[in-house]
Structures are given as structure tokens and as C-alpha cells.
């Protein structure tokens, strides 16, 4: 880095704009200096005023460039092709009842078990890429080998994206601005195309459609959820998505899952809703802090799922008709 001018740094690593901005370094007019010389010429008073310590900044800039380069390179060629969970033990030190659980991209695995049974511990084990160094003694393999340390320590390479039960945005921006902000933080190249794609997908999931100018805080629960899912599917860097129960309100849940797996995500879903749980081909049963069983969804269950989907459809039609102020007619509802 030493000999590059700021202009050259910005040209070669465009993402460094963010570093200068977030560190409150006003470099306009100094682009022809190298970073060290720029820091050198700041006077002491200004440094104190702005709480800037020039000593470590060059090293931090190097580190930032290193991390971002790994991150950007990683996205292009370093895909997660499999996630393996190796057994540990439950809260009473009883060994877990499975050999190994391998999950591939585009597969959905449901997680069932009472609240407090250890679902969040399982998730934390995956997130942290446990190596027999967490309370469950489990280990996680990525692509069949020991996971790289970056999955633990680097802020931009998190293994797991989470869709929690929260249905509201906090940030005060329009849908368009919000998606741009996220795309920029990911250094995505084709920001506009991605935003348009996310909006289109979100609208396919949400009951009522919304535009890119809608403030995210005024979206309905279903619309927020749809936008969060579409955004996570298309823009999040994390290869694994964990879903904590998708409410049935105002969103097509089957399409939501299809969208996630169409983007090669590995989907883990904590749910007790049979319509969702049976969509997965396998489900993990958790008891006493341990994995008690890994069940394959049977053919009978898949048939049952079809029936239940028809029932669900009937309920939804009835609900829609009621909302529209209509009188219900059995022949219209049981089609």
C-alpha cells in the first residue's frame, strides 16, 4: 500500500470510500498524496478535534482492504457446497443419536422440539462453526473439511443469516433506498438490477403489492416479511438461512421457501406448523439440548401434506371472502 496515492487506492479498491467515510477522513483535494503523507499533513489540533489517531490508520486500511478482498473473492469462487453436523451430546451428556447430518444447498431441514429444548444452541453451534468447543460437543464441517477461521471472526463472512420472528423494520428509508444501502454494504456491482429483482420477488410473496418508494416502516407485516425474505435470499452473503417460524399472515410461505432454495441457500427452519415442517425432506428432533432423531419425511406424510394444503386453501378462501364482506357458500369454497 505504501507507495500508492489515495487516488490509486480508490481506483484499485473502490470499496475503500467506505473506510474513509466511516473514519471521518476528508480526503477531497488530497487524492494525489499517499495515505501516510495525507495523515502526516493533518495538524495536531485537527487530529485531536476529530479524535483521530493517525498511528494505526495505515495498518487498519491495509487490514480493511485485505478483508474486503477476501470477502469479494469468496463470493465469487468459494461457495459452501455442504454443511455437516457431527454429533455431540445432550444436557445430560448422553451421546446424540445420529452419525452425521449432511445438508446440501437448496435443501430444507425442519427443526422441531419444545421451546427451550436447545434449538438456539444448535443454531449457535452452526453459526460459530463449533469444533467440539461448545457445551454440546458438536462439530461442524464445511465442504467436508474443518471450517476456515473467517467464518468465526470476520464480520462480513457470517455463515448464517437469520429470519427471526420480527416483522418490522427500524430504519427510516424507502424500499429503494433501503435496498441500495444493503447492496452497497455488500459491494454488489449491479445494484439496480438486484434491487429490482428483490422488489419483484417480494411482491410475488406478499398478498398486496408495494412500490420501491414505499417507506419500509409503513409496510404491512406480510409485506415486511416478504421484503426481508427476498432480500435475504438474493442479497445476503450468508450461505445458510435459519428461519424461526414464518407466520401465516399475508405471505405465501411455500413460495418464500422456494425462493430461498432457488438461490442455493441451505435452509434450516424451526417450526411446528405441519404445512412447513413436511415441506422439508428431513427434520431434526431436539430434546434435552441434544438431537434426538433425524427423521425423513415419509411418502405418507407427503400425501398428507397435499391434503392439508387443500384444507389450508379452503380456510384461506373463507377468510378472504369474509374480509371482502361476502356471505360464504360451501360450493364456492370447497372447489
Amino acid at each position, binding site marked *: 500500500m505504501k507507495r500508492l496515492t489515495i487516488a490509486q487506492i480508490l481506483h484499485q479498491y473502490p470499496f475503500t470510500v467506505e473506510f474513509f467515510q466511516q473514519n471521518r477522513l476528508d480526503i477531497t483535494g488530497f487524492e494525489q498524496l499517499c495515505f501516510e503523507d495525507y495523515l502526516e499533513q493533518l495538524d495536531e489540533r485537527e487530529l485531536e478535534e476529530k479524535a483521530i489517531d493517525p498511528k494505526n490508520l495505515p495498518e487498519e486500511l491495509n487490514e480493511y482492504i485485505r478483508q474486503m478482498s477476501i470477502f469479494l473473492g469468496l463470493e465469487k469462487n468459494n461457495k459452501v457446497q455442504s454443511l455437516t453436523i457431527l454429533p455431540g451430546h445432550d444436557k445430560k451428556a448422553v451421546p446424540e443419536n445420529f452419525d452425521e447430518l449432511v445438508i446440501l444447498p437448496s435443501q430444507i431441514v425442519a427443526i422441531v422440539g419444545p421451546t427451550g429444548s436447545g434449538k438456539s444452541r444448535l443454531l449457535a453451534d452452526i453459526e460459530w462453526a463449533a469444533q467440539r468447543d461448545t457445551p454440546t460437543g458438536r462439530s461442524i464441517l464445511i465442504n467436508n473439511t474443518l471450517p476456515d477461521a473467517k467464518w*468465526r471472526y470476520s*464480520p462480513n463472512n457470517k455463515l448464517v443469516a437469520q429470519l427471526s420472528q420480527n416483522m418490522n423494520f427500524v430504519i427510516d428509508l424507502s424500499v429503494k433506498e433501503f435496498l441500495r444501502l444493503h447492496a452497497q454494504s455488500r459491494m454488489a456491482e449491479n445494484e439496480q438490477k438486484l434491487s429490482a429483482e428483490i422488489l419483484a420477488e417480494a411482491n410475488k410473496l406478499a398478498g398486496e403489492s408495494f412500490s420501491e418508494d414505499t417507506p419500509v416502516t409503513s409496510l404491512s407485516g406480510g409485506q415486511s416479511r416478504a421484503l*426481508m425474505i427476498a432480500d*435475504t435470499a438474493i442479497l445476503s452473503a450468508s450461505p445458510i438461512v435459519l428461519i424461526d417460524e414464518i407466520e401465516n399472515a399475508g405471505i405465501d410461505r411455500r413460495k418464500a421457501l422456494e425462493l430461498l432454495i432457488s438461490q442455493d441457500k441451505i435452509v434450516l427452519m424451526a417450526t411446528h406448523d405441519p404445512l412447513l415442517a413436511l415441506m422439508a425432506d428431513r427434520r431434526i428432533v431436539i430434546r434435552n439440548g441434544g438431537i434426538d432423531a433425524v427423521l425423513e419425511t415419509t411418502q405418507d406424510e407427503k400425501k398428507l401434506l397435499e391434503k392439508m394444503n387443500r384444507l389450508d386453501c379452503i380456510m384461506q378462501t373463507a377468510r378472504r371472502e369474509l374480509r371482502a364482506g361476502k356471505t360464504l357458500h360451501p360450493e364456492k369454497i370447497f372447489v
Partner: protein
Amino acid sequence: MNLIIFSGPPSSGKTSVILKVIESFQRRKINVGAVKFDCLYTDDDKLYEKAGIPIKKGLSGALCPDHFFASNIEDVVKWGNKKKLDLLITESAGLCNRCSPYLVGVKGVCVIDNLSGINTPKKIGPMLKSADLVAITKGDIVSQAEREVFASRVSAVNPKAVVMHINGLSGQGAYELSTMLYDEKQHLHSVQGMKLRFPMPSAMCSYCLGETRIGQNYQMGNTKKMIWEDGEK
């Protein structure tokens, strides 16, 4: 004894995270104590007491809490050693965004929350910039996108830090954080002669020294004025 210095904006989740981390240490039979620094008021001592650990609190009153921290940390370490703690955790309310309590050679953790807004990393200065670890809380109430944007801004301000998402309510991530904090080989007997990571502002104005009257005549020392165009006022 190990010493760990926690800092972070008000209500960011410091106590919640520390208490969850302490639970992990207690399971490992590590003897933990805590000291809370605040400005005017705190109830945190009661929370630590409830967790059954030795706790002291210090209120800085008229002083910047970080200055107060610097003048008291030596005694605090003496107390911890006398109590035969394996691990002493200090929690400071980061009220003054200009100062930070971290010491060279002692682990410093900054706790900030997703709800505080995406410009917070830029605003809070040395408290974030010179931390070794950053714990980001309240991820449960924002979207994945908001979490990712926030974390990427944190890492632009402090690229060297390990950044972790911790849920202060459920404790998710706290076990993992705890494994990065305790070092069996560290035996800290005193902090005498240690250095602050980031110098505190050296300026003093007449109001620092108790002046209450407003007006040009009463302003001495290091006064700083806003910039006004000609005729603007």
C-alpha cells in the same frame, strides 16, 4: 487475575451481555467480579448482585466517566486481587463519545446495538475504534439486511476487531464471546504504568472549572466557537 474492559453507549446491552458471559464463566468455575462506572445513577449493581458476584460501583458525578475510570482503575484492580477474583470485568457507560476507557494490553470490548442507527459506528469514535472485540446486540429486532449493513460499517471503522452478534436476552453468542475473553495465562497484579489506548481530550474551559455565568467575559482557557458567516448573527 484477568481484566476485561467493557464499554458502549447507554442502554446498548452491556449489562445483559456481561451477565450472560458471566453465566458461562460460572459454569467453568471461574471466579468473576464486576465494577460498574456511570455518571449520575445506575441500578446495574443490583443486577450483578443478583447474579451472585462481587460488585462495586463508582459514580463520576461532575466528571466525564472515562476520566473517572482512568483515575480509579488502579484501585479497582487492587480490590479485584484482594477478592481473589480470576476475572474482573468493568462496565463503563460510554457517555462521552470523545473518550474511551481501554488500556493497552487489556482486552477491550465495545457493546453497541443495531437499534442505535447506522450512523452510530461513525459517531462514537474511539470507544468503537480501539476495541478488540465488538459485540452487536438487539439483532433480534431488526432485519438481516439491517444487521449486515450495521456490521459492515462497524468493520470499516475498526477492521481489526472481531465482530460478534450477541443476543442480550437469549444469550445466543455469549458462550462464544466468553471463550475469547479469558486467558488462563494472564495474571494481572496491577495496572500501574499502563497506557490508555486513546488519549482523552486535553482541553479545559472555564465551565469545566465550575463557572456558571454565560458571556464572553467569563470564558477562559480553551473555548471553541461555532462558525458564523458575516451578518448571520
